[in-house]
């Protein structure tokens, strides 16, 4: 009996160690492989804007810029929508349909990112080029964000695609947080004569502030790491531009587009360094959100 218990426990511990070991190993491996690039470029890697495989000069700023801009756009667009959806599902939807309605939103997250990329490339792109772009330019063309010719691909397209992809992430977590607010808190609000919206705003949202924040951070993390969909719609133009209509690059798009032709060791090392930067950004963003959530649960 003892032997059986011991073996089983070892297997279980081992499996856990695999998961922990993977993350650690991932980091170390990326770090080690990036060392040639880090040695050669140092801090300038993050500041330089040229990506020239032939001359072996690699600067990552446009990629980092693109990743941050597209993710921020996606967060700006999806955050209010996601919160609205979460409020709808947890407070307003008829209980009988609730499961099915929330399933519809879950499906948004189940669709492979590749499909989003295709939709962005073939459906959204002409839409931006012919309808949305000019429309925005008419109204907001005085802003630097909306200048230049809308080619259809670029930061805006990627931002919109990403925003749809992260809606399920933010809304499902927010929904969980809302449902954790006890019913009697809401009832106290109603008893004081508040309207439904006031109860939602003051009681539910008020209680859930930190949870919603964490949900947003998590969505951001997801957007930062998206590879295929973004690569298909970002336009692959190694440049920094304030205009949202302009094509650009992101860390993931550079890695995907450049990797296949990677010949020289330094190029691979530079690409891996990009991956390392992405790892660090994503890990800290997600880690922060998860830690925050776990702390909240433990405190309650």
């Amino acid at each position, binding site marked *: 009996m003892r032997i059986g218990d011991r073996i089983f426990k070892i297997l279980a511990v081992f499996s856990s160690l695999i998961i922990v070991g993977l993350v650690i190993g991932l980091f170390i491996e990326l770090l080690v492989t990036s060392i040639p690039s880090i040695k050669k470029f140092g801090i300038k890697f993050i500041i330089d804007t040229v990506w020239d495989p032939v001359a072996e000069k690699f600067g990552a700023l446009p990629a980092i810029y693109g990743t941050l801009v597209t993710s921020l756009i996606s967060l700006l667009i999806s955050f209010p929508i996601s919160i609205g959806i979460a409020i709808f599902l947890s407070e307003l939807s008829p209980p009988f349909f609730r499961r099915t309605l929330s399933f519809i939103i879950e499906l948004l997250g*189940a669709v492979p990112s590749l499909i989003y990329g295709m939709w962005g490339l073939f459906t959204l792109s002409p839409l931006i080029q012919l309808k949305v772009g000019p429309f925005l330019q008419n109204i907001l063309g005085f802003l630097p964000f909306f200048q230049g010719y809308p080619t259809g691909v670029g930061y805006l397209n990627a931002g919109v695609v990403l925003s749809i992809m992260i809606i399920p992430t933010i809304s499902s977590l927010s929904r969980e947080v809302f449902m954790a607010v006890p019913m009697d808190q809401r009832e106290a609000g109603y008893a004081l004569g508040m309207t439904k919206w006031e109860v939602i705003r003051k009681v539910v949202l008020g209680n859930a502030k930190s949870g919603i924040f964490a949900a947003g951070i998590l969505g951001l993390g997801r957007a930062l790491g998206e590879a295929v969909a973004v690569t298909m719609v970002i336009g692959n133009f190694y440049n920094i531009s304030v205009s949202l209509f302009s094509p650009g690059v992101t860390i993931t798009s550079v890695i995907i587009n450049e990797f296949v032709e990677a010949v020289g060791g330094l190029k691979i090392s530079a690409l891996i360094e990009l991956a390392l930067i992405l790892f660090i950004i994503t890990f800290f963003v997600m880690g922060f959100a998860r830690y925050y959530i776990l702390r909240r649960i433990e405190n309650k």
Partner: protein
Amino acid sequence: MNYRRRKTTNYIMLGICIAAFFIGAIFLFWILGDVFLKGIKYINWKLFVELPKPPGIPEGGFGNAILGTFILTILASIIGIPIGIMAGVYVTEYGSGKLAWWTKFLTEILSSFPTIIIGIFIYILIVVPMKTFSALSGGIALSIIMLPVIAKSTEESIKMIPVSVREASYALGVPKWRTILRIVIPSAGSGIVTGIMMSIARIMGETAPLLFTSLNNNYWSYKLNEPIGSLTVLIFNYATSPYEDWRNMAWAAALILVFIVLILNIIAHIYTGKREKR
């Protein structure tokens, strides 16, 4: 009067929330409908049995890619399912210390981690030493993506089993490991199965990790140490190519992919619903 204003605000804000839901739903149906309409025109049974042809030559198919996705999925499952379940078991049955906390924390992070990084990880770890892209490396990369999803759903299913059931087993003089194997895991069975279905649906739709591991293959292949075709990589290559007939095929393939993924999700959804009623 003040009341009237509050009432109006109430209706407007609630209306906005309902509208938000419809925005989400509209996007879903828009995208799915798009895939359906663009892909259905090119669906025929030849797609499943023929090999890709050069652009310009009509017909052809991508049966090898479908088979490839199938093989990769099975490979990933063989590795990922047992380890994932055991990790979930560890956290619930043995974990009260630091290792359990870190496992839970890192599992959560790993489950929404950029899959492209995992692909690169396996590239460095396995593809480079092996000096070749391979189905094996693709399967391993996918298993890493599956792992945290299965571990998490295992953990949650086991947590739902009341302590008294375990105690009944202990009280009969059954040791811990047998209790876990024959009482806990079977009772959590349906939850674990759902988790497996969802994780399979997830890895079938992954592209980025495969680009660095299993690459692609235009011929029928089943050898583990050679590159292998997959539905997602095929779609990616065809969709971004300049050839129209390839792009059309990409839509057909996308339709097939979406169909499979949707079915898996719907089955899991219905299954969970039945379980909750019981």
